[in-house]
Every structure is written in structure tokens, then in C-alpha cells.
């Protein structure tokens, strides 16, 4: 009767590393992954250059106020986050909508390794890609800004730097900053970390809600609708609440200038990380408890 062995060969079996390997194959073998990443790259770099060009032109001709040239060149990430967030959502909800999740959990029935593997793969790939994108966005944005010259720069009372075109005020200098500018490298890393966070927030929502529409609505609600709702609060309360909301807290990591109503870069990223951990934690609870 036993032409076939009952026990599995000893060298075969589920491990965390193998689960990660599997998720990496899944992640890279979908066309939608590379579409989303392509769009995110295009937007983050393209819009960064465009913003730098438009703002630089305006300031060079009419003078003006620009809180943070580094952040200006990274502004494309505000839009690119949508593509990254959706990619995070789809990484898990795509499995539920197609039924793939049943194959996944039949192969890894303990479930937790799947959750860990998805986080590791997504975080590693998105961090690497958005970090490169942030460097390119910064360097090309600053290259554009360097083409514009202004006279005199002084710190404004609100924080940030005001420029004037009046030749009588101060020396003529370029609008762009170099990579050695204080906080510039940190802001670039901050942009990449924020992107990873947004994607993981989407992943957490996906684990929690299990369907793409609901999870995307939840993600955008957290990022974009919460700040709008906060504006309904009394002004005295608003300044204390707003800076702790995910979008403002997380994007504080992309800045080089302290602004009074924003958290410091690392503090902001730290607060944002709490949202991410909460979403992923809730997602893990649902993954473990509910029927697949």
C-alpha cells in the first residue's frame, strides 16, 4: 500500500525565508506591480521637476516665499503616494478577489509568515525604489532651481525663507541647494520612508477589509479626508490635532525647515509609524482570526 511515503522529505517545508521568497515571486510576477511603480516614479520625479520649474520661475521674477526648497523638489511624492498606497492595498486584496489567498494559506497555514513576508518584500522594494526616485527628484529639482537667481534671503517669522528680486538687498545667489544642505539627505530618506509607510498603511487596510475598494477608501480617508475633517475643529484645537494626523505627521519627514505647526521630521515619521503599526496589527488580527 505504501508506494508513496507518508512523511514529507526532510529538506522541504515552510520557513519564514521561503515565505518571503514566495511573496517576492508573487510581487514581481504581476504586471500591475510595475505599472504602479512606473507611475509612482514618473509622478514623483516629473512633478518634482515641474514644481521646481514653476516655483523657481515665479520667485525669480516676482520674489516670494518658499518654505523649503528641498521639500519643493520632493513635492511629487504627495501625489505618488496614491500609486504606492494602492499598490500596497492590491498586494493583499488581489489575493482575496481572485481566490489566490486560499492557495497561499493552504501552502502556509500558520498565516503569520505570509503577513511578515508581504511586509518585508513590500517595504524592501518600495524603500529601495522610492529612495532612488527621491535622490533623482531632489537632484533634478535642485538643478532646475539652480537656474534661477534671487537677491537676499531672510528667514521669515513663520519659518521658511523669503526671497526678493530687489538687487539692493543682499548678494545674488542661486535658488537651488546642494545635497550637503542641512537636512537634505534626511529629507530624501524621509520621503522614501514615508512612501514605505503609506504602502504598508494600504497593506494593513487591505488585510483588514479584504477588498480593494473598501481598503483604498479607508486609506485615502485616513490620509486625505482626516485633515479636511480636522478643519472643522475650533482653531485653538486644530493646531494641536492636525500635526498628528497621518499625512502631516508623515510628510514632516520630507522637510528641512522647522515649521511651528508641524512636528519635527523624525517625530513626525514616528507618529506616522504608529498609524502604520496599528493598521498592520489590526490586519494581522483579522488574518489570524477570520475564515479565509
Amino acid at each position, binding site marked *: 500500500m505504501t508506494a508513496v511515503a507518508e512523511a514529507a522529505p526532510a529538506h522541504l*517545508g515552510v520557513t519564514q525565508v521561503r515565505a518571503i521568497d514566495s511573496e517576492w*515571486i508573487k510581487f514581481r510576477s504581476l504586471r500591475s506591480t510595475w505599472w504602479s511603480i512606473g507611475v509612482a516614479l514618473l509622478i514623483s520625479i516629473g512633478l518634482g521637476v515641474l514644481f521646481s520649474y514653476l516655483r523657481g520661475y515665479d520667485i525669480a521674477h516676482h520674489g516670494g516665499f518658499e518654505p523649503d526648497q528641498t521639500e519643493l523638489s520632493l513635492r511629487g511624492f504627495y501625489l505618488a503616494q496614491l500609486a504606492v498606497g494602492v499598490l500596497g492595498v492590491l498586494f493583499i486584496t488581489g489575493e482575496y478577489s481572485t*481566490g489566490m489567498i*486560499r492557495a497561499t494559506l493552504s*501552502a502556509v497555514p500558520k498565516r503569520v509568515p505570509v503577513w511578515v513576508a508581504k511586509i518585508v518584500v513590500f517595504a524592501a522594494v518600495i524603500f529601495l525604489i522610492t529612495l532612488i526616485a527621491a535622490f533623482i527628484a531632489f537632484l533634478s529639482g535642485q538643478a532646475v532651481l539652480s537656474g534661477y537667481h534671487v537677491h537676499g534671503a531672510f528667514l521669515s517669522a513663520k519659518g521658511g525663507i523669503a526671497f526678493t528680486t530687489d538687487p539692493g538687498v543682499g548678494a545674488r545667489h542661486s535658488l537651488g541647494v546642494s545635497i550637503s544642505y542641512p537636512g537634505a539627505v534626511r529629507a530624501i530618506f524621509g520621503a522614501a520612508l514615508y512612501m514605505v509607510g503609506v504602502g504598508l498603511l494600504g497593506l494593513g487596510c487591505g488585510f483588514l477589509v479584504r477588498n480593494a475598494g473598501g481598503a483604498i477608501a479607508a486609506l485615502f480617508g485616513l490620509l486625505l479626508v482626516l485633515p479636511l475633517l480636522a478643519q472643522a475643529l475650533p482653531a485653538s484645537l486644530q493646531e494641536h490635532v492636525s500635526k498628528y494626523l497621518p499625512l502631516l505627521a508623515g510628510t514632516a519627514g520630507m522637510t528641512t525647515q522647522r515649521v511651528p505647526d508641524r512636528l519635527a521630521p523624525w517625530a513626525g515619521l514616528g507618529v506616522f509609524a504608529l498609524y502604520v503599526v496599528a493598521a498592520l496589527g489590526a490586519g494581522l488580527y483579522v488574518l489570524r482570526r477570520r475564515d479565509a
Partner: protein
Amino acid sequence: MIEAFDLTKRYGEKVAVDGLSFVVQPGVVTGFLGPNGAGKSTTMRMLLGLDRPTSGTATINGRGYDELRAPLCEVGALLEARAVHTGRSARNHLLALAATHGIGRRRVDEVLDLVGLTHVAGKRAGGFSLGMGQRLGIASALLGDPHTLILDEPVNGLDPEGILWIRTLLRSLAAEGRTVFVSSHLMSEMALTATHLIVVGQGRLIADASVAELTAASGQKVVRVRTEEAPRLRDLLAADGVSVTSTERDLLLVTGLTSAEVGRVAADARIALVELVAQQPSLEEAFMELTRDAVEFGTPMEEVAS
């Protein structure tokens, strides 16, 4: 070996699986039979650890599915609904599953070849026909060369060639000593593939017996007699415990007598017979009879509620 003990699954008020206990032995194809909605898929999902039983246990070779170190190498599963991402190619789908266990690329090519999908392995699974999807599902199930196979409605949507292929495959897998557990709502299909049957209705066990036992046990045997002198033979056969019905002018269906007894009566009366057949009740009829009872016993709760 698959063992279910007092397996129960409730969704709110509704009981999908109700105290189901059975053992599936290796070496034969065991059919899991019941009308749609009888709880077959839910039971299989509980065996695979996808659904958590409300109470009771399900084990594979004595252990819960989620305790298996290498589940794909011990249990291969094909679930009714497709379990493939439509945007991924067949090969990448299998490679991703294989990677979780450290199963090599060569085995992936092997199973692709075995199910005849090698030529479309690079195509996206979303474009596959139902039959190709089913073959990919079988390939996933065989990936780890498992000792136990759990297949939910594997012939669903297959063309005749595909159905024949599955039947042959299942029997050869069982002949190799594997445990093969196959669900179906079609008795006729199970009659051709399975040796043993577990029949459920309304989430409860109705029968757990071999195909031969089930056909033998179900109802009475009917003798078909065709003769020009049907009315005369009918009068001669009439006796206590014998019933004769007729659907055609020259045809009698006799219960309560064997074909030999009917033949003797006819010979003694010098009645020429055109046809004399002892009919085995079909497995289909046995199944209908069994599940009808389950439906009848299953309703009183609802009457109380309303």
C-alpha cells in the same frame, strides 16, 4: 488518512456542517457526495484549515492541517472556486507556491507537463478556459507530491476528455497508495471513480459505505418482464408481498420476487417471455432516496421558528 470528528460549522443561525465524523482511508478513491449546499465545500475548507470549525476536529495523518511542517508535501488540494491570481502566469503561480516549501523549479516543470499545460505556462491564468484552470489547480495540488489529495468538484466544467483524464488520474493516484478524497454532487460521476462513499445532506452524515454496499442496501430489487401476455402473467404473480406495476402494455415491473421465481411461474404457465431482467437500483436512485430522508428530517426546526 483524513479524520473528521464531530466537525461542526455554524454561520450565525445557519448550521452548514453538523457533527460530521468520518475517516478517509488511503489506497482508494473516496467520494464525498451530497446535494449542493450540503456542506461539502465547508467541510473541505475546514480540513485545510481555511475555515475554523465551530467545534470538533479535522486531522490529516493525525495532525491538524496548520501543524503540518510541509503541508503541500502532505496534502494537495483543489478547491471549487479558483485559487489562482488571474494576472499571473501558470508557471509563476506554481513557482510562488513551490517557493514556500523550497520545492525546485524542475518539479514545477514536471507538474506542468503532467497536466499538459507546458505550452501555455507563460500565459496569464486569467485567460485560461475552465478546463485549463482546473488543470492548473490539479498541478498545484500535485506540486508537493502529497500523500493525501482533497479535491472539490474536480470534474466541474471539464469537457469529456478532461473528465476521463481526471478519472484515470484519481484512480492511479489511489492505486499508488494515496488517500484521495473527492467531492461531487453527481452520483453518476462518483459511481465511475469512487470505491467508497461518504454521503452528506444538510451538513449531516447520511451514509459512509462502499459503493457496492450502498447500491445493495438501497431499496428493493425490481424485475423487468416483457411479454405478449402481460395481463395473464400479472394475475399469476399476484400474491402477498409481491407488487406488480406496469408502465407499458407488454411490460411488468415486479418487486418481491427474484427473476428466477418470475421465470418459473411463466414457464409453468407456458407464457413466452420477450425479456426478463433483474434490475439493480442505480446509485443515483440510492442517493436520491438517502438525501430525501435527510431533507425531510431537516425541516422541523424552521417550522418552529416561523
